[in-house]
């Protein structure tokens, strides 16, 4: 009976992980196809489609655009999120709870709605569709997340530690630089990496707010319009690889923190 239960659990686990990862596995496997169609039978392995991606200036420039947007928008989102978390945690503000609710609200609004709203506003104020517009969009969606993560780490104990530093003669700048930031470093790093992965994968807002220079997910979509092609598999696998690396780095930081 026990053996049977174990067998069922194993099958169930296999089904779950298969359900999650099979599409990705298929994507990666057929990116190594040596013939022109990403369908069985498997004819590889071959790196010819990766070479094709690297030799496609539109894809490589989109890749750099994506990296730039991800890094810059995440740094801005973390900085703004940190400052607002600091403000909410340190000062008694009128309607603090409502304001905190409002700042995290965009987490529940669909990217499509946010993207359309930004499109309308940018049209009104005359900001052209470009990477900066997309970057602003990514700050809008990632700021609430950064705020929520960093704010959750600013408890009473943290406040007392800052009071102790001030009591010993530290200026506000010293408190921030020598005490608050070093203690909150894991939370700040975690929100930075999460923001970067979200910005990296984000399609809808980038699609609505860019025109000529665009990000990688939008360029992949352009590629898909001309049909399935192992090149799309290859570039998709690259996107996936970058996300995996970011996730692993994040895990390592958070795991290393736990024993302390």
């Amino acid at each position, binding site marked *: 009976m026990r053996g049977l239960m174990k067998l069922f659990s194993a099958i169930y686990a296999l089904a779950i992980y298969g359900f999650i990862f099979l599409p990705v596995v298929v994507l990666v496997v057929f990116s190594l196809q040596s013939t022109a169609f990403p369908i069985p039978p498997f004819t590889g392995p071959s790196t010819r489609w990766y070479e094709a991606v690297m030799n496609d200036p539109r894809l490589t420039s989109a890749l750099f655009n994506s990296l730039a947007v991800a890094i810059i928008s995440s740094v801005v989102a973390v900085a703004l999120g940190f400052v607002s978390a600091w403000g909410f945690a340190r000062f008694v503000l009128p309607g603090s709870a409502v304001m905190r609710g409002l700042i995290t609200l965009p987490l529940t609004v669909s990217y499509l709605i946010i993207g359309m709203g930004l499109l309308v506003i940018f049209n009104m104020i005359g900001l052209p569709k470009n990477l900066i517009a997309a970057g602003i969009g990514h700050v809008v969606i990632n700021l609430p997340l950064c705020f929520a993560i960093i704010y959750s780490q600013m408890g009473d*104990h943290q406040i*007392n*530690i800052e*009071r102790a530093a*001030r*009591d*010993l003669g530290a200026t506000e700048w*010293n408190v921030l630089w020598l005490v608050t930031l*070093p203690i909150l470093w894991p939370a700040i790093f975690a929100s930075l990496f999460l923001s970067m992965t979200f910005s990296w994968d984000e399609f809808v807002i980038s699609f609505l707010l860019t025109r000529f220079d665009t990000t990688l997910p939008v360029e992949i979509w352009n590629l898909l319009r001309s049909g399935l092609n192992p090149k799309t598999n290859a570039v998709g696998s690259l996107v996936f690889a970058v996300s995996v690396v970011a996730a692993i780095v994040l895990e390592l930081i958070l795991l290393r923190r736990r024993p*302390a």
Partner: protein
Amino acid sequence: MTEALVEMKNISHSFGRAGVLHDVSLTINPGSYTVLLGPSGSGKTTLLSILGGFLVPRKGSVLIRGHNCTMMPPAKRPTTTVFQDYALFPHMSVGNNVGFGLRMKGVVKSERDRLAHEALVIVGLPEAFKKKPHQLSGGQRQRVALARALVVKPAVLLLDEPLGALDLKLRRQMQDELKIIQKQVGTAFVHVTHDQEEAMALADHCVVMNQGRIEDEGTPERVYAKPATRFSATFMGESTIIPGEVTSVTSTAISVNTVFGSFPIIATAEEGAKVTLAIRPEHMRLIRDSRSITFGSAEVTAVVFQGSFKRVVAASKTLSGPTFIAKIPATHEVAVGDTVTPCCHIENLIMLTK
């Protein structure tokens, strides 16, 4: 009399509508160990926060060494605080924690390491210099917090329930060490606690607080032997409380009428004043002698053997009589349900007018 180190004058404070401190004045002398004793909500921690600069009082002023510091932020004040949760910097070594205040003053690294090491020697923890706070026990963190606050040589060191998080044995041990360290460094300590034993053991000057006011202050011996108010008589040690009324007044003595009859007391009071008579448990007896005054009879409701003595609680059989608390010799045979005759010597009656 030396000049006062700290003068807190007519301090009032409130959080929202609730008054927390009502016109409190307090003087702290150089080199003294002051303990603010009171139940939670008595305003003792608020008073300490005002002294430390974490709160600006609604009314009143704080003078340290004659300078008005009422509006001065904590960073600029010659005070340092040992927080109840220690508030050590988790990312810094113990040595850097202790040296932090010196670093803020611009002391060079080698010098502040030397001073931090000295401070750790004073608190008996020199071997922890390179460790991180999370590698230390609660008692050790407490010592590091003390060293960190002492190393900058404050005019006043503030301790906010510093022993509250420690277990009883460690608390008594740290309490002895705190007193020794205070005498050794000579800095004035102001210590907040709700533990009356801690207060009696540590204080040179004991300040009993209740509901935002100072009920009584003085040496712990004086506060215990001659409490100024009923609250102080029951919070700083236990007492049997017998209410009464002043019936006659002569030039040297008064007569206080209670449910147990009239007692002559050497004191002054107005005729008709409502007063309270308090008797400390060690003065309450269950066996009368020729000098005893008696308080009717009472039924024993609890007997707790405490090693060197027995603590006996007895309910008066007289209508609206008090609950008697007595500490009697451990050899005295008494059991729950026994009828006893509580009594004491007349000179041990403490008369309280408030």
